[in-house]
Each structure stands twice: as structure tokens, then as C-alpha cells.
């Protein structure tokens, strides 16, 4: 099995689906022109392979999404790329009040089979361009929200998202595009709404997703040397939220830490922790802990940016504290 990047995995998913289904189209800012295809290179080359089906748009996110919704209602399967998650803010009305609602308001007679691809995250891009809106999208009924951590999951989930009849917000991550992982050559799909063990262990359960899955795996390697064997549940999908593995795992380990990159208050970690205590209360041997980003607008300075975000060492510290009963 070949090791490819997260970026390449996404591109393969797009290519396969465009070959398979002529109604799949890609629209977005610079998806054709910039650096050969997309601000982060995901669509590079696709415009040549699929003439007319990959189009650059004006810098008008509300229009990109709005046109995408209309096209989806009319029979296409548009994949709209919003250059960064920060720019979805100006299209929030289209996403929340239109894409998410049509099918429900018209008794399922109308479907909006579109994918909104957009990267969360940071990378010396300062306050207005370094945000994580997982929890925002996960809050909205009518949307499906996917946040893959590995190239394998990214490819399988993007293909499924394109085939899904509901609008899917597909949250990539700036820091993951260059990461590598094994992806089989043959076709496969990963269902939406199914979480995955990324590491099996017996002492403590980490529930996480996206970039923090990879940081948690790094943390697990450090902790393993200290004799602590953590289990990592990667949610992969944020809406609908599949906590079945989290419950199963906590039943075994009796300890849980929710690890998220975004701000703590009203974050998705709070939702997960609440569900764990509701449904796995009798399995808990310690209060559920949360690792999250600091609640400040992102500083531009490199050292401050790093101090703001959670990394493997923060996960390690949280696990140690729990194992030493410091809570």
C-alpha cells in the first residue's frame, strides 16, 4: 500500500468521484488558477482532466455556496471549496438557513447533495485566519459534518460525502495537508457517522478528531514509555456524532479525556463529556477531563500561537494528571 499525503488522498477522492459521476463539479476561489489548483493544492490538475467541471469563482463565498445549493437542488453534486474556514462566516446564512434546511422544510422532496470543503486551523495566519469552527457546524441540524484525521479516512469519507444526499461540511486541516499515510489503490468508502479506534489501550480513553488525533497518537507513544496505555477513539464525523466506541472504551478504561483544538467553552468536547457522563456514568472512575485551545483570538507571534494551541505535550500532561489522580 502506498503512502500518500492527506492532500493527495483528497485529490484522488475527487478524481474518482468525478470519473464515476458526471454531475460532480468543483467550484471555488482559485481552484483552477492558483498554484496549479487550489490555495492548498488539493484540486491541482483536475481542471485539465475534467474540462469545464472545475471552475474558479469570484471572491464571494455567499455566492459560491448559494450557487452550489441551487445546483445541488437542480441535480448536480457540487463540491464547493471555501479557501479557509474563516471565509465560511460570510456564507453562514447560506449554509445554515438554506443548505441545512431545504430538505426538512420541503418534506424531503428537495435534496441538497453538496459538499463544502474547507480547512480549519492555523499556520502563522493570525487571529482572523486561524480558527476552528468544528463546534459551530456540528451544532446545526440538517448538516453532516466530517473531520478526518488521516489520508485514509480523508479519501474514504470525501467519496462518501460526495455521494451523500445531504449537505456535508467537510472540515480539512491546514496542518494535515502534508501528513502522510497509507492509502490503498483500490476503491473503498468510509461511512459517515462511524468513529474509529486509532489506538487500542486499556488505561485511559482519549476521544478526539482531526489534528488532535495525530497529536494524541504522538502523546500515546510518549505515555507508552511511561507504562500508560491509552486508547484513542477518533470520531471522524462530528455530526451525526458516533460515541458508541467512546462508551465501549470507557467501559473498559473508566477514564476519559476529550481532546479538541477549538475553544473550550461550548466546544464539542463539552457535548462529548456530557454524553459520556449521561450514558457511561457508572463506568467512570474519574471526572472527564478536557484538553482544548486557549480562549483567545489567535496571536500572530509564533511562540504565542504555539502556546495557544493544544499539542501532544498537553495531552501527555492531562493523561499524567488523571493517572496520578490530580483532578
Amino acid at each position, binding site marked *: 500500500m502506498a503512502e500518500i499525503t492527506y492532500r493527495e488522498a483528497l485529490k484522488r477522492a475527487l478524481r474518482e468521484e468525478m470519473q464515476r459521476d458526471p454531475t460532480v463539479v468543483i467550484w471555488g476561489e482559485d481552484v483552477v488558477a492558483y498554484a496549479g489548483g487550489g490555495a492548498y493544492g488539493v484540486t491541482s490538475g483536475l481542471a485539465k482532466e475534467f474540462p469545464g467541471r472545475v471552475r474558479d469563482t469570484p471572491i464571494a463565498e455567499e455566492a459560491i455556496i448559494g450557487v452550489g445549493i441551487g445546483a445541488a437542488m437542480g441535480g448536480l453534486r457540487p463540491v464547493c471549496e471555501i479557501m479557509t474556514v474563516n471565509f465560511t462566516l460570510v456564507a453562514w446564512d447560506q449554509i445554515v438557513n438554506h443548505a441545512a434546511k431545504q430538505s426538512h422544510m420541503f418534506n424531503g422532496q428537495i435534496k441538497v447533495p453538496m459538499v463544502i470543503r474547507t480547512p480549519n486551523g492555523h499556520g502563522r495566519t493570525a487571529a482572523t485566519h486561524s480558527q476552528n469552527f468544528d463546534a459551530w457546524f456540528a451544532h446545526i441540524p440538517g448538516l453532516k459534518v466530517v473531520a478526518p484525521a488521516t489520508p485514509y479516512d480523508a479519501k474514504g469519507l470525501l467519496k462518501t460525502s460526495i455521494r451523500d444526499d445531504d449537505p456535508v461540511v467537510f472540515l480539512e486541516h491546514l496542518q494535515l495537508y502534508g501528513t502522510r499515510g497509507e492509502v490503498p489503490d483500490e476503491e473503498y468508502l468510509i461511512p459517515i457517522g462511524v468513529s474509529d479506534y486509532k489506538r487500542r489501550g486499556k488505561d485511559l480513553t482519549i476521544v478526539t478528531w482531526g489534528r488532535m488525533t495525530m497529536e494524541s497518537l504522538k502523546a500515546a507513544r510518549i505515555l507508552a514509555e511511561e507504562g500508560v496505555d491509552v486508547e484513542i477513539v477518533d470520531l471522524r464525523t462530528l455530526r451525526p456524532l458516533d460515541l458508541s466506541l467512546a462508551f465501549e472504551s470507557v467501559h473498559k478504561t*473508566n477514564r476519559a479525556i476529550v481532546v479538541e483544538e477549538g475553544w473550550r467553552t461550548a466546544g464539542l468536547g463539552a457535548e462529548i463529556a456530557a454524553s459520556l457522563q449521561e450514558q457511561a*456514568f*457508572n*463506568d*467512570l*472512575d*474519574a471526572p472527564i477531563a478536557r484538553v482544548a485551545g486557549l480562549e483567545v483570538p489567535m496571536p500572530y507571534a509564533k511562540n504565542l500561537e504555539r502556546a495557544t494551541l493544544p499539542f501532544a505535550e498537553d495531552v501527555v500532561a492531562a493523561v499524567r494528571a488523571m493517572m496520578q*489522580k*490530580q*483532578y
Partner: protein
Amino acid sequence: MATQITMPQMGFDMTEGTIAAWLKKEGDVVNKGEPIAEIETDKTTIQVESFSSGVLRKIIAQVGQKVPVGEVIGIIADPDEQVEAPQPSASAVSPAQPSVPKVNGAAQPAAPAPAAAQPPAPPVVNEGRIIATPVARRLAEERGIDLRYVKGTGPEGRITKADVEAFVPPARLAPEPEPIGKPVGSPILKEPEPTPRPAPAVEPALQPAVVPAVAPATKQPLTRMRQTIATRMVASKQQVPHFYITVSVEMDAALALRAQINESLKPEGIKISVNDMVIRAVALALRRFPNMNASFTPEGLEQHDHVHVGSAVTVEGGLVTVTVRDTDTKTLKQISQEMTALVERARNNKMQPGDIGGQTFTISNLGMYDVENFIAIVNQPDAGILAVATATPTPVVRNGEVVVRTIMRMTLSGDHRVTDGAEGAQFINEVKRLLENPWSLVL
């Protein structure tokens, strides 16, 4: 300082106990750890040991009196110390009024000694609200451990799962997990013979019309053990959908090996029984069939981490289940020694906490009573019970020839909510295979 002796809680479901006997009189000197009274609970009789040295100054609860858990039954103090006895609670049913010293005037009840200020017993480490994690509470309930006795090591003394797991009940004082050893199958032991009737079908005309031919039947009051057995067996038959699978085990090899082993163990005075071999075989089979080592709960099937094999033991007035803990990790010799000690204690009413209950599977062996086969009632919360009959020389067909082999029949009763016939059949055949290849029991 005066120490109150309180009614101990021996198991989470014990709410009251009856004073069976006082082993000391008022005025007797008692030493710490010395037995001072016998308490009869629903399920057993236990001795209460003194937690301090001094003089038994007051006997508050008299013999025969039922006392709620935690109520004071007596007071130990220095010979010249002034003691105040608390008024027995209204809930205490008392055939003989305890002597209550009048302290503050005739009508005034004695001021109850504040229980919190004077811990009744050193082993009680938690007074009032107990801080424990949810899983620690769950585990304690499953194991019948009273959290008041468990020292917490978490923040602010919170009791964690590890604390419960590490808890060793101090002999006699601590609650006994599942005190009465969840008796199994009263019917299996006491399947009553059909009562001989005065043959009404024959010569009815000769029967007196009204006057009974024999003296009226007498009613034996139900002992507590009988009551408990009745309750548990009825509950099991009502709640557990039973299914049954019988196999015949050729025991010749096992018996030959047993003779060899016992010959070599003679100097040590240890004798392996057939039942010890069955216990070992069941424990090994349970490891391969984790779903048979499980319990049905409304929330889901609970597969147990440990294999604790219980064995029904006949005692006076009924039976109890004694448990060999972590059976799968023990050798035949260890199992034999443990069973000998457990049965001895069970029959002499000297059971210790941990001897009974907590099993994950139960064996009922009537081999000594010359029975061909029988069917047992599932001992909740186990997924199954194995009824073992007598090994008997039996003609069987082997390679087309009728030959004589020592055949022992075993019947599995399974909880159909947990497991199914196919799994039960594979499980019981694994037990059979192990017994027919008995070296696997010692390797």
C-alpha cells in the same frame, strides 16, 4: 473511652440482624478482637468481635432481638467509666426489653451517644456521605462490598475503582460479599419425593369420609436460609429462561489420573476429588467461552474479567455456594485445598467474607448421591450452572463393540438471555473434552 458495639452490616442487602447469643456477660473483661456476640442474619450466623479492650458494660440488645444495621447493641468501656446507653430505635423489634439506664430522670430517654463522634468500629473508615466514583460504587455493589469500610485514595478521599479492587474485607467485620451464598437449586437437592397418599383411588369406600387418617401435618417455620433459597429460586425460575443440555463424559482416564495424583499427594494429605477436576475443567472452559462467564443486565451483557467458580455445598437446613476465586489460575491441588477448607467452614457455620457468593458460574454436584442425571436452577446472576451426576460403569458402544466405561452425565442449564444452545453445547463439550483428556487439567 466508651466504644459502642453496633449491628454490623454483613453484605449490602442486610438491613437487620438478630442477636443469637452473647458470648460475654455484662462486667466481663473483653480484649480487642475477642468474639463477644453471635449475630444471625438472613443467611448465616457470624461472630462479632470487639474493636477495643475494656469491660462489656452494657448489653443493650438482648438475645432474640432484631436490631437494624448500625444500631448499638452493647457498650465497652473502662470499668469505672460512666456510660450512657442509647435508646433502642422504634424499629428494633424486641421480645425482651433491654435494660435502659435512666440518666436524666425517669421519663427522659438516655441521651443517645453521638454515633459520628464515636466511630463504632475502627474498620468503618467512611462516615456519612461516601465519596466514591461511579464505577467504584458499581463494582462495590456487584461484589457486595460496603463502601463504609473502604479507604479512598482519590482526591479528598474519594474511593476509586482500584480501592474497591484492592479491598480485603477484615475477617468477620467487613461485609461479606453476597452473604448467603446464593443457594442453588433447592429443587435439585430437595426435589421432594411424591408424598405417599392414602391411596384414595383404591377402596375409596373404606376411607373415612371426614376424619383424616393420619395426624394433621405439622408446619415447620421457615428458616432464614429456607426463605432465602425460596426467594432466589423463584426469582431465577421466573426471570431466567432456562435451557438444558446434557452430555455423557467418559471418566475412566480422569479417574485413573486422579488415583495417580492422589497416590503422589498422599504424604501431603491432599486428596483430589472428581469435583475438583470438574471445577478446574469448567474454569478452563469458561476462559475459552467468555460469554458463558457473563451476566445479563438490562443495560447489556456483562462479561466478567475473572473466573470465579462456585460450588453448591449442602449445609444443615439447605445449601450455600462456596466460591473458589480466580479459579482458572489455580492448580488442581490449590482448588482441592481451597474447596476442603471452604466446605469445612460452610458446614461449621464459620464462613468468612469472600467464602461465598461472587461466583461467575456455579457447579452443583450430586455425584455422591447416586443420581443418573439432574437439572439445576441457574444461580443468578450467572449465565449457567452445571449439574454433575454420578460416574457409573455403563455399557457403551465404542468402535461397534459394546464395552463398559465409567460414564458421568452432566447437564448445563443456561440463561437463554445471555447465551444460546449452540454456544452452550460447545461449552459443555469443551468441559467434557477436558475431563476426557485429563492431562490438560494438570498441564
